[in-house]
């Protein structure tokens, strides 16, 4: 449709998630219009992220070197490990500033309908951390949907006999929400997980 390089750029942008042909065209023309330095900065950021970012060899978070920022930090408790599906989930938990332990990124969740079983996740890598890191507690923070719950149930069954404390993050009502709009499953869980009111 357009001259070679412009069309190439549109095609490449169009491969990105959530970008259709029209958006790709809009972005491509934006890039054509901006200063060369700005366009080059974008190009460099893309090449660098592929060249420099790897997975942490301990927790499989994204990392610039051999170990990620969290695994390098000696102030964090190595005996507490929080299991998440993706690096994005780790970042969400970090934002709470509630957790001072370390993480383990599974790289997904058990999804039978897509044929993803336990062997496709980094579960073996988690097991091999238990002893060297003297892990006392594993906190299962997979998503509260069918796949995430299935993964949590599988891990609990696997880890419990090994003498590690296994906990699951609580499910319940979102802060600022309305009780009358809560669905039965969530409200039921909120009831099951109720606790003493501190005085």
């Amino acid at each position: 449709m357009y001259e070679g390089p412009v069309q190439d750029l549109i095609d490449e942008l169009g491969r990105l998630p959530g970008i259709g042909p029209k958006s790709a065209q809009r972005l491509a023309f934006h890039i054509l219009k901006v200063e060369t330095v700005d366009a080059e900065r974008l190009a460099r950021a893309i090449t660098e992220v592929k060249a420099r970012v790897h997975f942490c060899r301990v927790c499989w978070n994204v990392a610039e070197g051999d170990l990620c920022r969290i695994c390098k930090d000696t102030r964090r408790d190595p005996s507490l490990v929080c299991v998440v599906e993706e690096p994005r989930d780790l970042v969400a938990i970090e934002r709470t500033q509630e957790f001072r332990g370390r993480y383990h990124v599974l790289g997904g969740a058990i999804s039978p309908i897509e044929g993803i079983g336990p062997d496709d996740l980094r579960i073996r890598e988690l097991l091999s951390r238990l002893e060297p890191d003297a892990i006392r507690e594993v906190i299962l923070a997979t998503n509260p949907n069918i796949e995430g719950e299935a993964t949590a149930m599988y891990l609990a069954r696997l880890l419990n006999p090994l003498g590690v404390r296994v906990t699951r993050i609580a499910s319940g009502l979102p802060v600022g929400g309305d009780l009358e709009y809560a669905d039965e499953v969530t409200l039921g869980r909120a009831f099951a997980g109720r606790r003493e009111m501190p005085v």
Partner: protein
Amino acid sequence: MNLYREQGVVLRTWKLGEADRIVVLLTQGEGKVRAVAKGVRKTKSRFGGRLEPFSHVDLSLYRGRELDIVTQAEVITPFRALREDYDRVVAGTAMLEAVDQVAQEREAAIRLYLLLVRALRALDGGPRDPSVVLDAFLLKLMALEGYRPALAECAGCGARGQPRCFSIARGGGLCERCRTGQESTLDAATMPLLAALLGDDLDTTATAEPAPASRREAGALVKGYVEYHLDRRLRAYPLVAR
């Protein structure tokens, strides 16, 4: 009127954009329906956990050109015990996957719907081996779809009497005269087990405790039979504990 109400079971979901989800449902009156649930992935969504796979819901839908839009959902059966047990979730997912493959869009599927709901209740309801309930369900599903395997007679000549060997391609057991020699002879307990899985009620089949060897043999035959006749691979099936 473009707004309609249906009862259905969520078969699977796909992520759509930032916070939406496409929900694939099996409904009574409209068969398979694909609908968008807007904002369902946000924590404050009013749908919350109602539109997850296995959800048995009463829905209000807005008819769209390609995808419908879910406007309201209320839970009919929560299937809580099913959701809270790994083996049952995996077996149940295999059921949903098979239903997703046979159901036709916009074609009433009352019997299929009732079979699925009954099977999910059976999974939810007791300490039965989930893989047995799954195999019974799959055989009944095949029968409903017109692929009832011949188990009490020969699939070749129709001769009465329970055959001892099974041909997936010919659709059931074969008598000594019809077999070509390629089919292996089954364990003595396997054919009666298959017949019980197909014929008995979903709630009672599973209470019998079949021998592990014929269980495995029957499982392999069920998987092969479904995959051959539907011409689809069952992805969840191999993950079911046996």
